[in-house]
């Protein structure tokens, strides 16, 4: 019976290739990445920037050195990188084998680093693109360097780069120290900004050329100002014979580029770059079956009977209208929660369970209403309800729908004519959906657990199965549980566990990974309730996350037509046993570290239970340039007091890339490696990969150092992220989808 079955994957490839060729043919050669994963030549940076929003992952290897980098073009000018670095044979010259300690404790040296780059000048007819950059600007500073660099296209196929580097980029061929000597690095616990080092000490020039041979192939040659003093010199991990590096790169498609290099006159290198552009969707769009077409009413003159309002008095009219509407919308996963009406207005409240754009759910409801509602109804009020809480009301005139259906400016014109407003706590007298709830949804599927950067390896992983169940007694009263069982994993390899002074609210994760098998990750009840037209409430009770259980309460003040919201959260929780069954007893063994607990070492302090009152005041603001800021001030899980700042770049289609820092009253020494909590967040809507509508989002938090200070409770279904898609800005930023 199927006819037009659109195949998103194949289309995606075709579109992808078409875009590559279009890009390459039209502009000067694209800005490429270097082995550090930032915009550049081979080992050296360049003056260019990636296209705004571009996200890339680079894996590069030469000699003993491997780097894995996540790079993000934060804005048109600013980009940032997070990198995991490994240097093998670190102790070749150390002479401490087999019992090395401190920085020599491991034969492979691992480090994490952050870079920032800012393009101060865009390439013009005569002027080059100029970028100023900080490499490894926070942290141990082992690969720290600063630079200013310019790149100019001489022809569309040939560009040249010249720059001046400091730090490790000033270690070979120095021309002196223009800004004074570089003070020695005080590493301490790492993680601090090394302000006083920046652009100090010897500076050295570097440069290179990049020749785009054809659409796919690029040749690169550079003169490097990096002497690899530590890696090649002091530690002898490889032999550096020359400052010249050569490379050949191949653009496989829009998403992938690979390269091979001859490095430092002695080593062969390889790199693979993977590109994700949040601004593009595979296949060019979300494939959803067509909506109802707008049904145009007959004119009042031609069919006065159709315009009669007598139907209002028909006792079962509401139930019939609701059922008819629900049938039309059920294929789109839209539930019609309630309906109320008079002769000229109909108010319909909907629950959107599938479409990633609420505007599309509203648009489809509006078009379905033109097919269902008697002709006398001119005003449609569509209320978005989430977890039983009505959030926003979109009021749209039926005659506007009829007039604009095929208008090429329909998106903007309709947005001008609708009104979006807050809704009261409960909707006026309405015929309600009595069939859909209670509702049980469940799934059994694959499960993956990652442990990143545990000192021994970039990551460790486990694969297994998970079972999820969600029982919605009413739309706002939800029981939820998740059980996981690992089948294969290397999570039970014990990593080094540095000593600590705080309660191990997170840093005992190794014990949770290895003992919780199977684990009841969550088992909780959540109740949502709208408290006033702009205030929302939540109470959650139970095993809230894998390490904590208890009570979590929250209120959120979020006016529909504003860009800000203010929230308050108060939780009283106890730490769960690492086996993640039902207990809250903490075994003495989970307190073991490298400094205590083992034979011959002092016993660790090991309270057999841990309870804490934790909570935050939170402020949220969505800037109109796509950035979002959140500030949380309060008491964290270890009892420490402080604040978190989180900045995200949010794309209208649901991608979010962000970074956060938390500073609490825990000293850098007590915090341990990293000095304070920080990390990167990445959220990708599932629909990007499937081309099918879905509200699922895949997210990940990358923390260079997982420690105990500045940690928040990880409770599901916090209010702000639950309701903000239904606020005015959430509805309108994907307004183009109203008509899809």
């Amino acid at each position: 019976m199927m006819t037009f079955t659109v195949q998103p994957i194949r289309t995606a490839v075709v579109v992808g290739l078409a875009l590559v060729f279009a890009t390459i043919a039209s502009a000067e050669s694209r800005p490429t990445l270097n082995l550090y994963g930032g915009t550049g030549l081979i080992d050296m940076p360049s003056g260019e920037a990636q296209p705004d929003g571009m996200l890339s992952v680079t894996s590069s290897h030469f000699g003993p050195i491997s780097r894995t980098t996540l790079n993000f073009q934060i804005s048109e000018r600013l980009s940032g990188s997070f990198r995991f670095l490994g240097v093998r044979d670190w102790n070749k010259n150390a002479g401490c084998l087999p019992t090395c300690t401190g920085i020599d404790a491991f034969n492979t040296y691992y480090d994490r680093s952050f870079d920032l780059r800012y393009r101060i000048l865009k390439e013009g007819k005569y002027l080059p693109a100029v970028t100023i950059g900080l490499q490894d600007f926070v942290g141990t500073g082992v690969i720290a360097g600063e630079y200013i660099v310019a790149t100019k296209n001489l022809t569309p196929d040939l560009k040249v780069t010249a720059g001046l580097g400091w730090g490790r980029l000033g270690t070979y061929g120095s021309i002196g120290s223009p800004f004074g000597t570089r003070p020695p690095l005080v590493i301490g616990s790492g993680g601090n900004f090394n302000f006083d080092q920046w652009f100090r000490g010897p500076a050295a020039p570097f440069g290179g050329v990049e020749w785009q041979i054809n659409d796919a192939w690029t040749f690169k040659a550079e003169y490097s100002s990096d002497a690899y003093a530590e890696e090649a010199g002091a530690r002898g991990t490889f032999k550096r014979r020359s400052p010249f590096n050569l490379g050949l790169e191949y653009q496989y498609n829009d998403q992938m580029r690979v390269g091979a290099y001859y490095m430092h006159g002695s080593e062969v290198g390889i790199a693979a770059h993977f590109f994700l552009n949040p601004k593009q969707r595979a296949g060019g769009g979300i494939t959803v079956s067509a909506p109802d077409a707008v049904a145009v009413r007959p004119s009042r003159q031609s069919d006065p009977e159709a315009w009669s309002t007598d139907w209002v008095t028909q006792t079962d009219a509401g139930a019939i209208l609701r059922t008819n509407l629900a049938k039309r919308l059920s294929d789109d996963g839209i539930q019609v929660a309630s309906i109320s009406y008079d002769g000229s207005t109909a108010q319909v409240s909907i629950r959107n369970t599938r479409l990633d754009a609420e505007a599309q759910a509203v648009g489809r409801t509006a078009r379905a209403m033109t097919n269902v509602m008697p002709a006398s109804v001119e005003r449609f009020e569509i209320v978005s309800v989430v977890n039983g809480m009505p959030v926003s009301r979109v009021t749209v005139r039926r005659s506007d729908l009829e007039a604009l259906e095929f208008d090429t400016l329909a998106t903007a014109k309709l947005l001008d004519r609708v009104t979006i407003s807050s809704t009261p706590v409960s909707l006026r007298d309405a015929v309600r959906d009595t069939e859909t709830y209670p509702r049980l949804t469940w799934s059994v599927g694959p499960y993956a657990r990652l442990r990143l950067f545990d000192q021994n390896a970039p990551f460790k992983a486990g694969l297994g199965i998970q079972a999820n169940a969600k029982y919605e007694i009413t739309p706002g009263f939800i029981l939820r549980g998740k059980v996981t069982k690992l089948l294969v994993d290397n999570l039970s390899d014990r990593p080094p566990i540095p000593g600590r002074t705080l309660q191990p609210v997170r840093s005992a994760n190794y014990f949770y990974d290895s003992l919780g098998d199977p684990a009841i990750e969550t088992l909780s009840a959540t109740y949502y309730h709208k408290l006033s037209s702009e205030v929302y409430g939540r109470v959650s009770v139970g095993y809230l996350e894998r390490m904590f259980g208890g009570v979590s309460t929250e209120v959120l003040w979020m006016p529909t037509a504003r860009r800000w919201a203010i929230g308050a959260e108060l939780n009283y929780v106890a730490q769960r046993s690492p086996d993640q069954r039902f207990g809250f007893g903490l075994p003495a063994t989970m307190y073991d570290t490298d400094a205590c607990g083992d034979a011959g070492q002092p016993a660790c302090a090991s309270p057999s239970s841990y309870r804490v009152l934790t909570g935050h005041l939170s402020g949220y603001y969505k800037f109109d340039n796509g950035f979002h800021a959140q500030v949380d001030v309060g008491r964290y899980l270890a009892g420490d007091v402080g604040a978190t700042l989180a900045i995200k770049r949010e794309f209208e289609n649901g991608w979010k890339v962000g970074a956060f820092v938390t500073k609490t009253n825990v000293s850098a020494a007590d915090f341990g490696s990293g000095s304070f909590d920080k990390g990167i967040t990445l959220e990708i809507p599932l629909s990007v990969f499937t081309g099918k509508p879905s509200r699922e989002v895949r997210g990940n938090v990358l923390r260079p150092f997982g420690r105990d200070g500045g940690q928040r409770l990880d409770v599901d279904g916090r209010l702000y992220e639950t309701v903000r898609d239904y606020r005015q800005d959430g509805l309108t930023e994907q307004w183009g989808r109203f008509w899809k």
Partner: protein
Amino acid sequence: MGAVLEMKILVPSALAVCLGLAGCGNDSDSFMMGRLLTSSITARLSDGPAPAPAFTRAALANIVTPVQLVTREKTGQKAVVAKIADNGGVETWSSVDKVTLSLRQGVVVATRGFGEDLMAAEVPGTATLAQSGAGYTRAHTLLNGLDAPVRTIYNCKITERSPQSIVVVELSYKTTHVVEMCSAGDQTFQNEFWFEGNGKIRKSRQWVSEGVGHMIVEDLRR
């Protein structure tokens, strides 16, 4: 587009008002009607250049509602579409699996259900296509990857008008073959129309978008 077609459209709305409220439910759904009528002859066809289609006049004889045959050139997939709505001269035609094409006098102004859909378009009328010698413009609106509408103005001209005999499911027609070329910057596309003597489009091959490609629309109405 005479009174007959309009009446067909009015029937479902009338049902929605009367029968719908009386509990007749979704049977009044014009789309469902199309589904019932067309389901007997639609078939799923494999990718690649279209193999011999299973559409014959004998099969079409079972369909009482007017239908057109749509082929997605890129994949060779075919569907019979039936009219489900008429809004101010724009007719929306739907396949069984809810993929729609909206046509103004046979010229595509919107698609839904394909992925990279044509959201809306300002298109030439049949008179312009059949007779005009001057250039004219089209406006096409698509959504970009961030769901924002992008409206592109194309400059178009007719590059060919020549007599051509065509066959549409066993029946042959004497037509005028019209080729339309449109461009905006480095984007170009070409549409083809086959006009009958009465000024109606019997067959066309029309561009939708990069992702969807061309649609071939053949009018199966007698």
